[in-house]
């Protein structure tokens, strides 16, 4: 089942936007389809699951606040060319795990602010651009206070005449000692007209920190293709399997529940087939 079919089937509890407070531990996933403005607050100590689905070109402003000790698993999925601003602010000891999948012409800006000590943020993202799509993935992680952790890994695949742009910034304020921040951008270009731009940036004002970033641009590993062909796989098959593998470890982090995750994986697969 595709994501759209899943939405239409009515199997999901969805809401359109507005202000929502998650104030009790709930097992299910809050799903919002094509919200224009959305404010979500996760109350103290609560663990919640949120999924934003963007199925048509539109503009979204989402603000998510994690109160002290809360935890959120959040998925953000773009099947079409949307513009979105997602702001996450985290209080002390909160934990936010984000999985972002951009399969369309999306232009998305994430701003994650770690405002309380010992807050942790992880973001795993993937974007896939085909034809002449232009995908923008902009991520700023702000370590405003000490003792926070952040980790991000964004993988991009572009083919044909598509362009993919990753802009990442890790900002560490002067008092944000003992920050542990890592940011990685990995990209694969396919064909001879694809375009990758990646700008992983560090802006650091504290000295007792562990910060690193890495960025790579490359292609599909020819050695791996050879290896797989030696085991009997055709070249296109090996290529697709590698690409699925490349983005798969991001997509598999989706915590939105079985049906949704399966639908999402299928969307990614069918997008990769177009490359």
């Amino acid at each position, binding site marked *: 089942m595709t994501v759209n079919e899943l939405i239409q089937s009515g199997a999901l509890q969805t809401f359109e936007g507005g202000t929502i407070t998650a104030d009790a531990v709930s097992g299910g996933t809050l799903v919002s389809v094509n919200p224009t403005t959305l404010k979500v607050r996760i109350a103290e100590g609560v663990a919640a699951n949120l999924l934003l689905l963007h199925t048509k070109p539109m503009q979204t402003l989402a603000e998510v606040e994690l109160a002290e000790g809360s935890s959120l698993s959040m998925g953000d999925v773009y099947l079409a060319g949307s513009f979105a601003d997602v702001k996450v602010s985290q209080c002390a000891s909160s934990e936010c795990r984000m999985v972002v999948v951009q399969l369309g012409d999306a232009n998305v800006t994430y701003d994650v602010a770690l405002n309380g000590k010992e807050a942790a943020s992880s973001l795993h993202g993937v974007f896939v651009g085909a034809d002449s799509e232009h995908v923008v993935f902009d991520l700023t992680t702000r370590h405003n206070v000490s003792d926070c952790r952040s980790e991000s890994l964004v993988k991009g695949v572009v083919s044909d005449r598509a362009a993919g742009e990753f802009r990442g910034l890790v900002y560490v304020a002067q008092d944000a000692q003992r920050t542990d921040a890592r940011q990685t951008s990995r990209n694969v270009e396919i064909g001879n007209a694809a375009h990758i731009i990646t700008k992983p940036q560090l802006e650091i004002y504290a000295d007792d920190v562990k910060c690193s970033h890495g960025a790579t641009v490359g292609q599909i*590993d020819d*050695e*791996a293709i*050879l*290896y*797989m*062909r*030696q*085991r*009997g*796989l*055709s*070249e296109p*098959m090996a290529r697709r*399997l*590698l690409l*699925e*593998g*490349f*983005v*798969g*470890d991001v997509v598999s982090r989706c915590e939105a529940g079985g049906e949704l995750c399966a639908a999402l994986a299928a969307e990614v697969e069918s997008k990769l087939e177009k490359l």
Partner: protein
Amino acid sequence: MLKVTNLHASVGEKEILRGINLEVKAGEVHAIMGPNGSGKSTLASVLAGNEKFTVTAGEVTFEGKNLLEMSIEDRARMGLFLGFQYPVEIPGVTMANFMKMAVAEQRKFRGEEPLSTSEFLRLMREKSAVVELDSKLTSRAVNEGFSGGEKKKNEIFQMAMLDPKLAILDETDSGLDIDALRIVATGVTKLHTSENATVVITHYQRLLDYIVPDYVHVLYKGRIIHSGDKSLALKLEKEGYDWLINDHKE
């Protein structure tokens, strides 16, 4: 099964194989030895169809077919298996998924029905026992984070899964401690039948204690300069290659 006649191959301008002749019949085990840079790994790569090398002369038939005309994957599907010296890591692609596709492709090529999921899983379990491969490894990405020994075991596991007619094992013993060597070698021996054949490329005699070869060939500067039986390997171990090589200096 395999007949190599006057095979010449080069990489770029450089000729590496300079007239190889070799015949391997069903049920046989051949060992190819030789000093570094003699062309052992190149021979394995050329037989497997690695496009990095250009065949400039000679013929290779496999099961009566012209091997050199076939793609890498078709050679594999026909039953030619190459155990790599340095198995590549393939992040994100699980062993299970990889093997499932490989087995399915082989069956399709041979006109056999695809395996059901449960049949496939049973096969995986059965074959991983052959090389004492930790079943957890099959749920991990191909070779990713595997130790040297695990990678080599994994090669033999895949060999077991694909049940090749001809297995060429390129330095499968390199980098293995004695326990891993025993497991790998025993695995290979268990898989050996009168229907298939094995070509072992190695530096050291010690592997041949476990996998007893019918023939030992010495490769030097792109040619097989000497062939013999198991005792040749022992002699090489003791005396080195000099006594052979001296006759072939240019």
